[in-house]
């Protein structure tokens, strides 16, 4: 039956059983083998050939992507955790020239959406993008940033434009390029924002377009806040996906200020400037026990969310924070320190009687009282109560030059306090031996003339009187949060310029002085100590009584001071006297601060403590 088939002599086989036309299969097999060999040879050639190194280098260029990590700038909080400076998501909008199809469309959309965007310049777009996209100009980069800090709303508008172009009907047969925003790319980033706007702007400062802190804490602690940008290569090979390097973000800061108190103090300052007609003003509230600044108001203030307008408010000679950056001759408020030195050294005591004749000679000049009057026999209390220049000059003379300046140096005058705010002024304490020091300076310095200090320097020095003789360093930084841990630096006493007994005696003296004077600084329910200051302002023609610096330094409660307030009003017009314009401001501030800190009135506190 199938013998012939089984013998292989059928259609496809030869008589000997071999396949008919087998040479064709062999030829095909050889062909495939040759092709396979050629492929292998080519692979080997590519791997080992002369261009192998070049190809490997070329491959490496695309094997990894360069990534720059910008650490998040640390946030700033007040003492109770309210955010004062944080971040907002914005976008960097750029053009990827490799992808651009229709540069005209991109130009038109950008000019419509970003017409009012700060920093967007449509002519710059035409210079840098339009010309390159049209081949008029050659550039070395394909990524050109056209606008930065673009808001979420602006990006949404651009996105709407892109969608509109994508859905717009156009005739396929026409040779013109269809409208498209292809090539417009964006990436998110963070911009500094200040939820409280103007509040505490002299303390905080701001971050400029380049991401650098300017003024205030932002400048002083910029390195801590900003962190270090890190650049690293990321493999695009998914098999090599791994842990990226851990990059630390900026450090979060917790300040000593209380947001509510800051707002209240700023409001009081603004009202005081209006009522007194002052040119500028400063109020600082500090805890004399540890140097924590609870509030620091200063004028002018700027809306930190529109920091670029600061040049409209601040000219080259206007500092943002007058409490730190402006030194001035404080006037009679300085007598606190002179009297502290006199009492502590034993040059005078509480019972010392000074007969005021209305003038005293020192270094060849005559010192007079503020009213050019003679006040007759005065105790040290009377000298302070009536703010007698002649008496304080006498105290300084009793102290002697060496001891007087030694005390003033121990109070930290002439040196920066080291407060965590940029732009601190050192003030000027002329010392014997300096070219411009004269013997008469001992007299004028004793009542705050011929010496310049900043409000924070005065606070530091007076803290010794309000804190049992122990002087503390004013500071604004309470804690910092780094790598998930909160660090609170230990604050220590920076000096003990006077004894506790002197501090208590002087505090009591100044409290009695206010009470006997029926000062506007008195607060019902609270016994406070303090001293006014009215300083004539030095001009090239000499001191002028038409322009004054009105100050007040006060603290309380007298038994255990918790609040130290310094008020400085510049060139008040309603009255030149500190007792008239600055003392009521102290009273208002103290009342509000007592309310916000739950500081009970003296009698309530005594009765509750006695329970």
């Amino acid at each position, binding site marked *: 039956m199938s013998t012939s088939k089984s013998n292989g002599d059928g259609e496809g086989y030869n008589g000997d059983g071999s396949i008919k036309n087998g040479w064709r299969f062999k030829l095909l097999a050889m062909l495939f083998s040759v092709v396979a060999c050629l492929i292998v040879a080519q692979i080997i050639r590519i791997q080992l050939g002369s261009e192998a190194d070049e190809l490997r280098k070329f491959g490496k260029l695309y094997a990894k992507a360069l990534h720059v990590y910008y650490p998040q700038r640390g946030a700033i909080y007040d003492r109770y955790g309210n955010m004062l400076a944080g971040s907002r998501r914005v976008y960097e909008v750029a053009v990827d020239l490799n992808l651009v199809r229709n540069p005209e469309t991109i130009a038109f959309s950008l000019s419509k959406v970003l017409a009012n965007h700060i920093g967007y310049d449509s002519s710059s777009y035409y210079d840098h993008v339009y010309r390159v996209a049209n081949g008029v100009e050659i550039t070395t980069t394909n990524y050109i940033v056209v606008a930065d800090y673009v808001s979420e709303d602006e990006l949404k508008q651009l996105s709407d434009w892109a969608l509109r172009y994508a859905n717009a009907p156009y005739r396929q047969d026409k040779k013109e390029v269809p409208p498209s925003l292809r090539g417009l790319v964006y990436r*998110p980033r963070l911009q500094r924002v200040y939820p409280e*706007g103007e509040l505490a702007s002299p303390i905080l400062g701001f971050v400029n377009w380049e991401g650098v802190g300017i003024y205030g804490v932002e400048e002083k602690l910029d390195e801590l806040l900003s962190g270090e940008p890190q650049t690293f290569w990321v493999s695009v090979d998914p098999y090599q996906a791994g842990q990226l390097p851990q990059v630390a973000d900026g450090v979060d800061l917790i300040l000593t200020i209380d947001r509510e108190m800051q707002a209240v103090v700023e409001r009081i300052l603004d009202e005081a400037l209006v009522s007194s007609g002052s040119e500028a003003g400063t109020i600082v509230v500090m805890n004399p026990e540890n140097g924590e600044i609870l509030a620091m108001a200063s004028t002018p203030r700027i809306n930190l969310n529109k920091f670029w307008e600061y040049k409209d408010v601040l000219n080259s000679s206007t500092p943002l924070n007058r409490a730190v950056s402006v030194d001035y001759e404080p006037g009679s408020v300085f007598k606190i320190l002179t009297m502290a030195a006199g009492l502590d050294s034993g040059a005078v005591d509480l019972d010392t009687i000074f007969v005021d004749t209305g003038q005293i000679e020192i270094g060849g000049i005559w010192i007079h009282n503020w009213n050019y009057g003679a006040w007759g026999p005065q105790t040290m209390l009377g000298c302070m109560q009536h703010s007698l220049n002649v008496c304080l000059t006498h105290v300084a003379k009793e102290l002697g030059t060496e001891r007087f300046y030694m005390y003033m140096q121990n109070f930290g005058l002439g040196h920066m306090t080291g407060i965590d705010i940029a732009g601190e002024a050192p003030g000027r304490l002329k010392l014997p031996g300096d070219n411009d020091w004269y013997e008469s300076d001992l007299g004028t310095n004793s009542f705050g003339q011929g010496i310049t200090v900043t409000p924070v320097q005065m606070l530091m020095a007076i803290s010794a009187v309000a804190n049992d003789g122990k002087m503390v360093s004013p500071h604004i930084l309470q804690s910092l949060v780094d790598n998930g841990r909160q660090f609170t630096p230990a604050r220590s006493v920076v000096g003990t310029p006077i004894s506790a007994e002197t501090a208590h005696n002087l505090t009591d003296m100044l409290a009695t002085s206010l009470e006997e004077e029926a000062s506007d600084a008195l607060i019902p329910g609270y016994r406070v100590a303090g001293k006014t200051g009215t300083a004539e302002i030095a001009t090239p023609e000499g001191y002028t009584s038409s322009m004054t610096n009105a100050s007040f330094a006060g603290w309380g409660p007298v038994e255990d001071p918790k609040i130290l307030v310094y008020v400085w009003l510049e060139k008040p017009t309603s009255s030149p006297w500190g007792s008239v314009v600055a003392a009521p401001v102290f009273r208002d501030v103290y009342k509000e601060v007592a309310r916000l800190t739950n500081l009970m009135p003296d009698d309530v506190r005594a009765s509750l403590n006695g329970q």
Partner: protein
Amino acid sequence: MEQVKQITQAYSQTPWRKQLQVIVAFLLVVVSVALVAGIYLRVTSQAATLGRQIQDMQIRMDGSQRLDLAAQDEVTLIEVVPIEEMRIQIADLQGQLAFNLSATVMREKAEPMGFVPSNPEEMIYFKVPGYQGKQLARLAPPPAPVAVNTTVLAPAYRESLIDWLAHQVNLVSRSWLPVWPQEVK
């Protein structure tokens, strides 16, 4: 002879059967290789997909997003957000929250609700046992304390028998250490 040939022919395989065997064997090899290759491809593709997902979750590899694609494709708007961008989003939300809780906004909300600043003269003070007052911000735990071994118990009261044995062996071996190099010489 003819008979032998016939017998041989009868018991020998037909050429097509031999060919079939060769083809089947070849196909077996091909299928095996394909199977292994398929498994390999599946595993490597899964690894590549996961690797890519990890990379996508970490950072945006090409750095920026295309506006035209983001506008047209809703999917791209809800795609996986890399950790880096998520951190930006969190910071942004914290900022928004701070704006909504700012002193000005809170005052604007409080005043229509009838809240007024407290008047010190109307305040009534009383002691609340245990009340600490308004507490300072605690945004993170304090630094971990440095571990200092302050235990005063003698080792005999803390060690197990095995610990003690290990300790003794360690002590003995240490006592030999200085001697060994000399012996080696």
